[in-house]
């Protein structure tokens, strides 16, 4: 039984990989099969991550007594072989990612996944990269999984047509390629100094370094941190993010809402394992504050809902980074709670954006009449078949009644969640953060600044959102009532309901997240579990 359960760790990587590979062989007409496969794979991932959540918790002692499961790839021992590690934090992030993946995939089936074949394969590879990044116990594999998810996201962000999308896509690729080089430089420096890439092994070796070696190691860690900050979207490395996220089609943007959090997860994981000195963490606070302030100001300036949603991603990232930069251990639990709520919220928000966009009456695009020689679109000049234009409302699917009422209600819920007002759990999350910050041993000026910034940014978000909401729903200007399908409406509703459930169950969820935070701050268990792994016959070799 346990032997079977141990393979659960590798499945969140293998299942989407195989699904993506199988889908490549299906003919283009086999859309139904592809959709079924994709949904089955993502549902399986959700089940697996829930199982992992349970198995790492205190309730299940029979398999991993300390809540850390280690899977040695190819049966090689830990510092030399490659390991996948699941602990509570990884399990929480996995559950979060598969929830977002399942809802956005359902949403995309309504109409966004056509035309074009590779959407579902790319989506599966994206989930594979995200899951792998959460599970890996090895720095270089973290890089590889980052690249897998980024490569898939390059393909996804380019979906659809139009020059703005190409332009934003190119900026996105260029920035992320440059960041990947920083990542590699950091990894190489760390390897050159410590001689290992296994995160658990690194912890011990790093503390043994001293003098110039230690300085170089710290420089490597800092370069690595910059790479993570680019991917997490922190100021001043985030100018690519609003442009990309607001231009990507709605389900892709919703799935991307999770991607920035992968960078944050890497910062959390490495920051606690390597026990970096206080200066680096202090820098994290200032970077986070700058992110929060710039995103808050930008929210006020944003006119379009998708841009507003992108800036709300940045604002939540600013809160998370600066709260983590305070280095108060009691704050990590509330940070995780806020992370979960904000990911679910922004995913719902982006999907909502895709629906409210259709309330606008769009004029047919005006063709410049005296263009001497109309250029063929790029794909024609390179011999690619032009994509067929999506026909609005052409496919089956039951429309829901009261579309505008539904949109309005969901918008209000999103606004309350983003700005952190009761009774929705955005309030609970921010309240827990503020309480945790003020309950520290001594209240420093930094804590006060953070609390003030959280409150002010909530107010600003409310102002910005109500302004956009009024224009969307109350303005007398002509709007059409869109025809919403259940497939599109349900995922948004489910995410909002999930947020509500999180708020109602804040006590048990908070306790689980607190225990995840505790094990994050006491990496000894993690390190021991990884380095003590004797794969194969575990019981026989133990004295």
């Amino acid at each position: 039984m346990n032997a079977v359960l141990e393979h659960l760790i590798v499945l969140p990587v293998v299942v989407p990989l195989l699904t993506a590979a199988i889908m490549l062989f299906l003919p283009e007409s086999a859309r139904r099969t592809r959709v079924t496969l994709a949904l089955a794979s993502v549902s399986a991932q959700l089940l697996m991550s829930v199982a992992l959540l349970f198995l790492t918790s205190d309730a299940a002692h029979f398999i991993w007594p300390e809540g850390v499961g280690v899977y040695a790839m190819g049966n090689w021992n830990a510092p030399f072989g490659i390991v996948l590690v699941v602990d509570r934090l990884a399990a929480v992030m996995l559950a979060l990612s598969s929830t977002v993946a399942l809802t956005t995939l359902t949403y995309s089936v309504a109409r966004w996944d056509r035309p074009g074949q590779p959407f579902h394969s790319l989506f599966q590879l994206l989930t594979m990269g995200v899951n792998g990044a959460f599970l890996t116990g090895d720095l270089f594999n973290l890089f590889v999984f980052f690249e897998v998810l980024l490569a898939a996201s390059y393909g996804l962000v380019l979906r659809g047509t139009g020059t703005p999308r190409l332009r934003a896509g190119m900026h996105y690729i260029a920035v992320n390629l440059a960041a990947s080089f920083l990542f590699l430089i950091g990894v190489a420096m760390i390897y050159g100094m410590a001689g290992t890439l296994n995160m658990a092994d690194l912890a011990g070796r790093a503390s043994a370094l001293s003098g110039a070696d230690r300085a170089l190691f710290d420089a490597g860690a800092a370069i690595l941190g910059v790479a993570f900050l680019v991917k997490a979207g922190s100021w001043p490395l985030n100018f690519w993010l609003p442009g990309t996220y607001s231009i990507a089609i709605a389900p892709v943007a919703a799935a991307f809402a999770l991607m920035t959090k992968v960078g944050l997860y890497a910062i959390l994981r490495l920051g606690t394992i390597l026990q970096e000195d206080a200066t680096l963490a202090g820098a994290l606070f200032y970077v986070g504050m700058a992110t929060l302030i710039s995103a808050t100001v930008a929210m006020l300036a944003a006119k379009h809902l998708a841009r507003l949603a992108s800036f709300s991603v940045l604002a939540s990232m600013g809160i998370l980074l600066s709260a983590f930069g305070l280095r108060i251990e009691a704050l990590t639990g509330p940070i995780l709670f806020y992370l979960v709520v904000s990911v679910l919220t922004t995913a719902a928000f982006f999907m909502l954006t895709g629906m409210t966009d259709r309330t606008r009456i769009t004029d047919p695009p005006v063709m410049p009449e005296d263009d001497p020689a109309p250029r063929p679109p790029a794909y024609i000049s390179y011999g690619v078949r032009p994509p067929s234009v999506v026909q609005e409302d052409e496919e089956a699917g039951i429309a829901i009644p009261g579309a505008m009422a539904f949109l309005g209600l969901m918008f209000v819920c999103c606004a309350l969640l983003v700005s952190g007002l009761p009774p929705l759990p955005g309030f609970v999350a921010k309240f827990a953060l503020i309480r945790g910050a003020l309950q520290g041993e001594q209240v420093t000026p930094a804590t006060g600044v953070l609390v003030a910034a959280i409150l002010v940014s909530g107010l600003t978000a409310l102002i910005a959102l109500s302004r956009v909401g009024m224009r969307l729903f109350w303005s007398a200007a002509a709007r059409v009532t869109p025809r919403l399908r259940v497939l599109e409406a349900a995922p948004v509703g489910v995410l909002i309901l999930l947020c509500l459930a999180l708020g109602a169950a804040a006590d048990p969820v908070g306790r689980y997240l607190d225990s995840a935070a505790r094990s994050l701050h006491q990496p000894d268990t993690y390190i021991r579990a990884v380095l003590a792994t004797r794969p194969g016959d575990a019981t026989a070799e133990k004295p």
Partner: protein
Amino acid sequence: MELVFALAIGVLAGSGIWLLLRPRTFQVLMGLTLLSYAVNLFIFGMGRLALHRPPVLTGHGPVDPALYADPVPQALVLTAIVIGFATTALFLVVLLALRGSTGTDHVDGQEPAE
């Protein structure tokens, strides 16, 4: 040898960064490519430079690790080359598509105002 190696990395990285900040898409592509060469050399150098040392163990019995080069950075470089190559190719496709749809090779898709 170390000096030449370091200079090579420095020149590649410097020119790569300069090109990366240029306004034309092809320059950006070249910059990314040069930068990836610099990074790959850097990773290789992190395994320490040594002559006449194979990275793969040969023979049987006890071996003296000092006679062998560190194989891990070489494996890392291989992976980094493959990944960098694939993403650069993708970047090239987007570059061409943008050039085709806007008619300019400026990174913003439009010529700056004079």
